[in-house]
Every structure is written in C-alpha cells, then in structure tokens.
C-alpha cells in the first residue's frame, strides 16, 4: 500500500513537472518567434514539409472519410426517412469536426514524428551544441520556424481537406446513393455557415501549434542514442494526438453554438 501511494505520488509529481516544462518551453518558443532575426529559409522549408508534403495523406483521409460518412449517415437517416439531410450532415461533420481532427491526427503522425526524430538526432549528434557555438539560438533556428509553420499550414490543409471530404460525400451521394447532383450541392450549401468553416480552421491552427510543439519539445529533450530518439518520436506522436483530442473538446466548448 505504501509503495502504491509512493508510485502514485511520484507519477503525479512527474506529470506536473512535465506540464511545467512544456509550458515554459512553449513560452520561450513564442518569445523567440517574436524576436529577430527571423529564419525565413527555415520557415519556408517547414511550410513545404508540413503543408505541401502532407497534402496527399490529408486528402486521402478526408476523401474516404467523407465517402464513408455519406454512406453511414444515409443508412441511419433512411430509418426515419431523413435521407435528404445526408449532404448537410456530411458538410457540417467534415468542416466542424472530422476535417480538423483527422488532418490533425494524420499530420501528428507524419510531422510530429519527423520533427522529434530530426531534432532528437541533432541533439544526440551534438548538432544543437554546434548551433550554439556558431552563435545561433537553437530555439530560434529550430523551434520557432516549426511552430509558425505548423500553425499556418494546418488551417490550409484542413480547408483543402474540407473540400475533398465534401467532394467524397458528393461522389457517394450522387453515384452510389442516386442523389441529384444539383440538389446535393444545394443541400450542402443550404445550412453551411461561415462560422462552421472558421471553427474548423481555428481548431486546425491550435492543432498545428500543438503538433509542432510536441515534436520540438520531445526532440529537443531527447534521450541519448537511437533508443532515446525513438522514445522521443513515440512520445511526440502520442502526446500530440492526445492533446489534439483534448483541445478539440476545449475549442468546441468555447465556440459551442457558434
């Protein structure tokens, strides 16, 4: 019993310490984002890496999710003769919820892991120390551009993902379920409000920041050797995914009804 309480206490203290470390890390990172010099080349590289190279995986995920959503909602709504709401359900689900969350989770897997692995490898091979010896602040050179790129790129990815997801629903609705194309499109736009899309984009920006933050934090504090980098990579993906789901609820609650 004594040992159980001891372990529980240690876990709680470690968790609080981790939250404190991450908070301090993010405050420092935001400070360096706002302080010159700005590394535009690094920022551009990250934007290409996060934004451009994540497009296929986000596009495919949202396409098939939109298609499945159309099929599932049709099956459900047919039970109480509400099949004509399928288009509305698809567009609202994709823009408000599925687009940002699925894109966030996919990017967390792809980019969070790659950031943690790259920065972690730089840590264990002394490249971060080398940056310091070359009078360059690693937080400013490595972390700040990644956080900015993550926060900028995710909303664009989600916007494109929204369009592709709705298009997936359209394909199934029209070619599989037999909806009239113009009626389906009219239904899609009829109840869609600007706030539905902006809510999704706000979520995406928050998720992008969290993904980059977790990738950079775990990479920056990576343990030694291949095992340390591997652990940092896993922790980055797991913590980013969990934070995305928590932040999703928090942001939705704040904008509930909006």
């Amino acid at each position, binding site marked *: 019993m004594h040992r159980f309480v001891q372990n529980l206490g240690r876990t709680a203290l470690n968790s609080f310490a981790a939250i404190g470390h991450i908070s301090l890390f993010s405050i420092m990172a935001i400070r360096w984002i706002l302080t010159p010099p700005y590394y535009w080349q690094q920022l551009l590289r990250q934007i290409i890496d996060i934004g451009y190279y994540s497009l296929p995986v986000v596009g495919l995920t949202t396409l098939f999710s939109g298609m499945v959503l159309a099929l599932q909602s049709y099956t459900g709504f047919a039970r109480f003769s509400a099949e004509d709401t399928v288009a509305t359900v698809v567009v609202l689900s994709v823009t408000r919820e599925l687009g940002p969350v699925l894109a966030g989770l996919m990017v967390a897997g792809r980019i969070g892991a790659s950031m943690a692995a790259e920065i972690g490898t*730089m840590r264990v091979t002394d*490249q971060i*120390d*080398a940056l310091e*010896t*070359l*009078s360059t602040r690693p937080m400013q050179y490595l972390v700040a551009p990644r956080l900015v790129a993550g926060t900028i790129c995710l909303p664009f990815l989600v916007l494109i993902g929204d369009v592709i997801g709705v298009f997936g629903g359209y394909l199934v609705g029209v070619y599989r379920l037999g909806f009239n194309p113009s009626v389906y499109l009219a239904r899609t736009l009829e109840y869609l409000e600007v706030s539905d899309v902006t809510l999704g984009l706000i979520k995406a920006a928050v998720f992008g920041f969290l993904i980059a933050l977790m990738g950079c934090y775990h990479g920056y504090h990576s343990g030694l050797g291949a095992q340390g980098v591997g652990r940092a990579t896993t922790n980055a993906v797991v913590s980013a995914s969990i934070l995305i789901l928590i932040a999703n609820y928090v942001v939705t609650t704040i904008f509930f009804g909006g």
Partner: protein
Amino acid sequence: MAATPKIELAGVTKSFDANHVLKGVNLTVAPQESLVIIGTSGCGKSVLMKCLNGLIRPDTGSVKIEGEEVLDQGRAALEDLRQHFGMTFQFGALFDSLPIWENVTFRLRHQKALGKAAARDIAAQTITQLGLAPSVIDQYPAELSGGMQKRVALARAIVDEPEILLFDEPTSGLDPITGGVIDRLIIDARKRLGATTVTISHDMASVRRIADKVAMLHNGVIIWAGPADNMNESGVPEVHQFVHGLTEGPLTNNWTIYQAGS
C-alpha cells in the same frame, strides 16, 4: 609581468546529479599555445571543453577568456564571445539538412549576412585549403567519408578566423594516415590564424604532433600539466600509464578490483 593567459580556469566544478565530473579544475592556456587535454574515456574532458565556451555552465569556479569572466556574461554577450571561438565535435556535428557550403559558412551567412554567391566562393576556397575538391560544397554530410567530414568540420571552425579553436577528438575513428593529415591541417590552421587551441585527444601520436602543452584530467582534477616534451618524465604514475598505453597501473586498478570482486 606575465602576459594575461588567453584561457584561465580556476576551481571549476560540475556535477550531473550525483556524478561529480569536475571537482576543481585549474588550468591556464597562454596566447597562441596549443594545449591538449588527455584522460581516460568518460573522465569529463568534453564537459571541461564545453565549459570553456559556455555550452555547459560550471556549478562553481571561474572561466576567464583574456581575463574576462565568462560566467558573468549574459546570453547576448556570451554569443558575441563565441564568435571568437571555433569548435569541432567528436563526430563532426555537421548539419545533415544543409549542403557543405552552407555548413562551412553557417556563421558568416547568419551572423554577417553573407550572400549566397560569396558564401559558396568562401566555402570552396576554405575546403580546397583543407585538401578537398571544390565540387564537394554541393554534397551533403551523409555523402562524405569520416575523414572528409572531419575536414569540413575543421573548415567550419576556421572559416571566420577565430582566435580560439577547440577540437574534441579530431582524429578519433580515422586511420593513422588520415589522422596525421588532420593533425597537419590543425597545425597549419593554427599557425596561419595565430590561434590558441585546446584539443581533447586519446591518440598519443596526435598529441605529440600538435601539443605545446599537455594536461591530464583524472578524477575530476588536472593531475599533471606541462610541456609536451616532458610527458615521458612527468613522474606521475597515471600519466606514465596513459602515455605508454599500459594495461597495468593506477588508472586500471579499480577495474581489476571490480573484475576480481565480480
């Protein structure tokens, strides 16, 4: 009156949790002198070197560069001070994501806003001086052999002509011939720049080639320091064992006890 030492350490201590790595290091390096720090693996040589340019902050003690206390400096002043240092790391620490020309001219590009064309020219010129083909500048570190990476790291350290050069095991992992070439390049660069150098090395052939002065770190303190020519007559058993690579002696007594006990 004696000239101010270029580098002066007094009572430097550093611990990582319960591991007391440095227990009061005292050391001076004269201007344009080449000091080599020797010692067994894991004795804290790299930690000591990182204390010199502020990469690691000692727990107590004093680190002075040209009489100026490093530990009192704020971050910005420390960054300015580091511009007087060039450093190579044991495994090169070249930036994987950048081509060689950007690696070599990193500080010039970011601190002195050097343009791309000029940076490429300077990189090509510097690596040519170190015996590499100019075409190497467009390659990435992973495409180079270990010896070539060490030369590129050396190029990055000397390109903006620093006053102090720090080399962490510059010949480790290299064959004797390539190691000898790297030593010659270090000696040439030092003479050309008039720089003060501090090198960590296990390679006694290399130590004899590049050192004016040798210091041995053991159990967290400098147990002997003197001219390189006097290494063989130090009268310190640990230095004698290390210099001659003997398996029996005070440095390995603990290992023997451990093996017998286990």
